[in-house]
């Protein structure tokens, strides 16, 4: 059966992110003049005079800044078999935030500042989505 959930439509700003995800690498942007990492991507570094950010590979490690657990599926036909599922707002080690599903842990077991690491799910031939799972003990 074909994949029936919302899919990202890469654009000139996001294409490097999705292409890297397909290769199972997590990329974010870094602004050289400030040293700050940021996400979602933009063409120019915020707070600068049109400086172009660089794409850099993130460590993939972070912690749960906030999260939700979806119990009621919307749209119903698309998510009926998925609930309950968790969506996290993840603070990456680099300091910027990213959204993604939190997997590999019961939805009632998630807690604030839980350490997570990125994994990848190839959902179509073109698109790979990052997900976050509990960090393995190092």
């Amino acid at each position: 059966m074909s994949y029936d959930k919302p899919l990202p439509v890469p654009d000139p700003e996001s294409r490097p992110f999705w292409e890297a995800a397909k290769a199972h690498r997590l990329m974010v942007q870094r602004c050289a003049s400030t040293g700050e990492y940021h996400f979602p991507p933009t063409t120019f570094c915020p707070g600068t005079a049109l400086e172009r950010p660089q794409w850099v590979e993130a460590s993939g490690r972070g912690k749960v800044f906030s999260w939700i657990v979806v119990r009621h599926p919307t749209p119903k036909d698309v998510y009926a078999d998925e609930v309950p599922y968790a969506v996290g707002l993840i603070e990456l080690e680099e300091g910027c935030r990213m959204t993604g599903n939190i997997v590999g842990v019961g939805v009632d077991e998630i807690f604030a500042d839980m350490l997570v690491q990125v994994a990848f799910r190839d959902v179509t031939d073109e698109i790979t989505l990052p997900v976050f799972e509990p960090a393995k003990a190092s």
Partner: protein
Amino acid sequence: MWALRDKYAIAGIGCTDFTRASGRTVRSLASEACAKAVADAGLKLDDIDGIISFNFNDSAPAMGVATELGIPRANYAVDFQSGGNAANLITLTATAAIEAGLAKNVLCFRAMNGRSGFRLGGGRDMSAHGITQYTAPFGWITYPQAMAMWRRRYMIEYGADDEGLAEIAVTFRDNAVLNPRAMQRTPITKDDYYNSRPIVDPFRMLDICLESDGACAVLITSAERAKDMPHKPVYIMGGAYGGGPNQGDDLFDAIRWPDHSHNAFKYLADDLWGSAGIRPGDVDVAQVYDCFTYSVLMALEGLGFCKEGEGGDFVQGGRIARTGALPLNTAGGLLSEAYIHGFNHVIEAVEQLRGVSGPRQIKDAEICLTTAGAMTCASAMLLRN
């Protein structure tokens, strides 16, 4: 102090029935509310030369409404591409347009088939463009899901007690029971709140506002002209619109918002109180944007009625009831009256200040606050009689 303080007034109001299925076009709902507001102000359609709305999701264009009504000179017909955050922005903009000589008598309206047409609580396109490509593919799609992320962060910072949210839901429903316009008039208890269906943790069904078909409109004119109109003028004392840094690409996007335990109201509070030269303690009654129970806490905290993290305690003990020190959402709010994207709050504010709210009237109400918006940008207004 705001240069336009008390120089402009709301002189007419109008609204349609609030329903689940209007069976009508959105434009016709808007036209009905607008025509009623014009008549309420004792004016004729020929007197109208401005018309403003905001149109995130489902709406009708201002010039289309002017066309259906047959307004001959709709000079300042403007649509803001904004959500509930603009419900007070458009009224403030009307004062600016009149002051600038662009119009004299301006209609402001919001109309939507929010239940039978485009449902904000429903899904989105399966192709996730723009900022949505970082949210929708993870099943983070609806506004309850968006706001739940804020609420969770607040709980991490300040504790997971939902008692204040229960108090808000029950109190607003109690007000709606006395409001013939309200869509939900069956009393509820705190047990009903806690037992309502989990939708998206940490929100239950009774944390989430209604979806409604309907329209509301107000007529803004100069204080001078308003004095000769049929109703007691309701003066615009002050107002503010805005937010903080990193407001995001759209209303949903708060990925870069610095701290989700407060929203835009923290950033516009000083502008709001400074515009009218009053303080929170001067407010007699308030209509606070309640797309979610939690939004009320963020507005009260952000605007300085209480400290951040203390809203849940602040709203308890009868303080926000009709007999309390700060009666809130006296018509039932978006939670229990209707969701006309916050514009129904403006109608209720005017009725309270005219003193015509019947059994839900707040005695001696002289100053009413209205707020609009719940996330990274918002608007607010201070009205007086």
